[in-house]
């Protein structure tokens, strides 16, 4: 039996610097990146080139490469570096990449784990697999063909999956005579895409994977390129997430009970840190306790940090099982209704309403898609109405879960905000998703319990609280109808409040402009305020353009069934423009108002509003009377 006997590093027999080399290699975690882009952009070839130039290929691997290159004939007499990574027989035969391959290499400065992902659209799910654990993407573009659909698609997917750093490698520069003009043209095209996606960093590099230009060393053929070669850039870039104090999240994987005296909760710390004696709470129950011990195989530790697999014991006897989350700081989401993005990964399309098994953190619960809000056209980023999602399509959905899920928004935590869906019959992994936020009935356990509730407040006012949400173009007559309606309702002794979009922009929403993002936030705030007023027992009239379907749906989700009445004021744009009471259309036509709904910004009409009112057909007072009638008939007043 040989116990290892690490030699004294000062021993002259040990090669100089080995220990220092090992220490330096160990000091920082590997940079995980993926290569993606269209078919035949040369992803595998580039990785093969990286391995070859970093002298990481062994002699026997080189000999095999030479033989394989000859056998397939794809190297055109030279070496076909793609054969180093395309590991499946079918891949080598067809000269394509089907599945993601992971390669490991190191330079003197850094270790790397690279995921080589397929370019074919039909294998997008394998590309997403590679992206889910990477922190940087090397996106390849063939210099001859420029930015393609897959370039856009992959850019969107990597950004969606939380990658904030991207390298645009304009490959095959040798085939365009290393033209600076061509490179600049492609960079300009890509800037447009990157601008929409807001990466933290982006670097464009002209390369030739086949000949090695600007891969390891700066190429003499691109004197016009002042930036670093690819390898140098990868060695130096800092992708470490903001270490600002993240709240503790420890999804419990396993409860260890070797005897009656020990109950340990095992898991990997997804974020934050934990110290002996820390106050923590266990979710979904929300029970508070303190950390008694941080147990390791080598004895107790004082603390543990994000990324470590630990075992904790707690001061109080709390019932905790697999899937619970030990947390500190800001409470996680605990909800059974969640808004999420989903990538569909199965041949059989998504079925809204069908139950799937949802795995998130260490928990598993049945879940169904209660609403498919829209599909995202990843080429244009437009939202499209959809009844289902087919293979490789991305959509925004409402997820209803059987048990409340403990999670965080994905943008805050990859580990606690990502989930997969598994088909209960085929057992295939059919979907991957990211949590956006919790919807109504979010049973956040930290809520203060209040004795007087909505029902008792409403009883006092002798009405059923409701929000009447008026949507339509500027000048359609929303405020005029709402004003007439409020006068009629107060005349009947009802308790109301009118939230007018224009008026709110003088106060609550003073800081918001008219870009799509600001409009989304505008609607969100008004919806939240409306929810408070409905909770107060009021009949709320909200009159604002609210041009996007998804945000009106989001607003609807904040309310219980029957509490949200959508009223579409459908006056045609020609009529609105003719009236132009505020002179806005004139200005917008003159180009003085950017993002004007109906002219330079889209309006998405409701698909099934409770009411549609066209003011060219009905006057404001008559319209208000019709709504009063509706409220009576349905027992609101």
């Amino acid at each position, binding site marked *: 039996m040989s116990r290892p*006997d690490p030699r004294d590093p000062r021993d002259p027999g040990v*090669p100089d610097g080995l220990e220092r080399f090992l220490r330096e290699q160990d*000091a920082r*975690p590997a940079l995980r990146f993926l290569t993606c882009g269209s078919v035949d952009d040369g992803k595998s070839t580039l990785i093969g080139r990286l391995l070859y130039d970093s002298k990481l290929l062994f002699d026997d691997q080189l000999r095999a490469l030479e033989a394989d290159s000859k056998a397939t004939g794809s190297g055109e007499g030279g070496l076909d570096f793609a054969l180093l*990574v395309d590991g499946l027989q079918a891949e080598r035969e067809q000269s394509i990449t089907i599945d993601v391959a992971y390669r490991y290499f190191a330079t003197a400065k850094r270790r790397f784990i690279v995921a080589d992902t397929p370019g074919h659209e039909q294998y997008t799910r394998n590309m997403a697999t590679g992206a889910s654990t990477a922190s940087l993407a090397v996106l390849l573009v063939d210099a001859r063909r420029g930015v393609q659909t897959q370039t856009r698609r992959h850019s969107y997917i990597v950004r969606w999956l939380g990658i904030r750093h991207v390298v645009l490698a304009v490959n095959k520069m040798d085939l365009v005579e290393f033209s600076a003009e061509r490179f600049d043209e492609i960079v300009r095209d890509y800037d447009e895409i990157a601008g929409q996606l807001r990466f933290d960093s982006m670097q464009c590099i002209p390369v030739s994977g086949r000949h090695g230009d600007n891969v390891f060393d700066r190429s003499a053929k691109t004197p016009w390129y002042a930036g670093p070669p690819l390898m140098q850039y990868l060695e130096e870039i800092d992708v470490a997430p903001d270490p600002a104090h993240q709240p503790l999240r420890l999804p419990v994987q396993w409860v260890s009970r070797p005897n009656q005296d020990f109950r340990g909760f095992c898991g990997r710390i997804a974020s934050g840190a934990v110290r002996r004696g820390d106050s923590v709470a266990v979710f979904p129950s929300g029970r508070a306790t303190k950390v008694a011990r941080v147990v390791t195989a080598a004895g107790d530790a004082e603390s543990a940090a994000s990324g470590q697999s630990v075992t904790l014991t707690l001061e109080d006897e709390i019932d905790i099982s697999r899937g619970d989350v030990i947390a500190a700081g800001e409470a996680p989401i605990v909800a059974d209704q969640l808004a999420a993005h989903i990538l569909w990964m199965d041949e059989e399309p998504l079925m809204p309403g069908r139950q799937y098994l949802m795995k998130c953190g260490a928990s598993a619960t049945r879940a169904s898609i209660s609403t498919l809000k829209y599909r995202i056209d990843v080429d244009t980023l437009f939202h499209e109405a959809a009844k289902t999602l087919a293979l490789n399509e991305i959509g925004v959905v409402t997820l209803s879960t059987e048990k409340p899920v403990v999670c965080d928004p994905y943008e805050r935590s990859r580990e606690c905000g990502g989930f997969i869906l598994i088909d209960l019959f085929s057992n295939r992994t059919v979907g991957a998703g990211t949590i956006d936020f919790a919807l109504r009935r979010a049973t956040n356990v930290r809520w203060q319990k209040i004795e007087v509730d909505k029902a008792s407040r409403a009883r006092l006012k002798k009405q059923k609280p409701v929000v009447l949400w008026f949507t339509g173009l500027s000048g359609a007559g929303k405020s005029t109808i709402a004003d007439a309606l409020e006068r009629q309702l107060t005349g009947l002794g009802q308790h109301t409040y009118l939230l007018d979009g224009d008026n709110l922009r003088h106060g609550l929403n003073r800081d918001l402009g008219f870009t799509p993002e600001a409009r989304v936030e505008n609607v969100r705030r008004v919806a939240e305020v409306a929810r408070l007023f409905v909770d107060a027992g009021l009949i709320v009239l909200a009159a604002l353009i609210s041009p996007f379907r998804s945000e009106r749906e989001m607003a609807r989700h904040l309310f219980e069934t029957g509490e949200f009445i959508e009223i579409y004021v459908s006056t045609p744009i020609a009529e609105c423009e003719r009236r132009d009471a505020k002179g806005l259309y004139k200005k917008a036509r003159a180009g003085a108002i950017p993002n004007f709904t109906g002219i330079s910004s889209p309006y998405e009409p409701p698909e099934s509003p409770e009411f549609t009112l066209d003011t060219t057909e009905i006057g404001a007072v008559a319209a208000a009377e019709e709504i009063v009638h509706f409220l009576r008939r349905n027992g609101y007043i």
Partner: protein
Amino acid sequence: MQLSHLDTLEAEGIHILREVAAEFSKPVLLYSIGKDSSVLLHLSLKAFAPAPPPFSLLHVDTTWKFREMIAFRDQRARELGLDLIVHTNPEGLARGVNPFDHGSALHTDIMKTQGLRQAIDKHGFDAAIGGARRDEEKSRAKERIFSHRNSTHRWEPKSQRPELWSLYNTRLAAHESMRIFPLSNWTELDVWHYILRESIPVVPLYFAARRPVVERDGTLIMVDDERLPLRPGEKPQLRSVRFRTLGCYPLTGAIESTAETLLDVLAEMTASRVSERQGRVIDRDQSASMEKKKQEGYF
């Protein structure tokens, strides 16, 4: 604070092992006695401490392993008080299957691949944990950490389940099983560096010593017992050799080396020009041979 590289790999390995324990009804650790198995066993001890690992160890014995491997195996199991199951394919044994008369491919198939399948079926294991790494070989680089096997133990490379984040699909239909590779993201260098850091015991064959070897088709084969038939003119010589991988001794090539300690081994490896699988006779048939063997249920 950022975790170091080895700390990150260790945490990932432990996370995977705990997932296996939590999600399967009868998992087993496939213990092949080599350095990767040693690391796997070490991680298992760490993952569940102070409790013992909640699974048994299984060794599929072809009866052609180095004697030192078997001695090491039995001693480790005894020291740690672990439940060790040893399985040898009884039909193969009865028919005297060996690497010489039957060739390396058939021997490996019957004694290793078929033997493993028998053991999994016999004991009803639904999950088998192995020490394979993606950096070993091209088709391994494509394999998932949780690798699904159908009811006939086959791997279907074209219909692998997408594996995002660290969320693993562990669902199985009747008679299906899972192979799990917690060391997927480790390299050979990581394994040795970790063995050094954690002082993990390994079989002495990994360190250089004077051993009796014969040179055969460019490979140094150790004469571990009298069953190795010597070809005409072959005469065992004592040479200073060691092994980078361990398997059946007639199929495992030694390398000439003077690396007697872990640091020597690490130094030799960082300077090496050949890959670790180079010493494996069974991989040489053709480029895709590993993929084929894996489809048939080889680990």
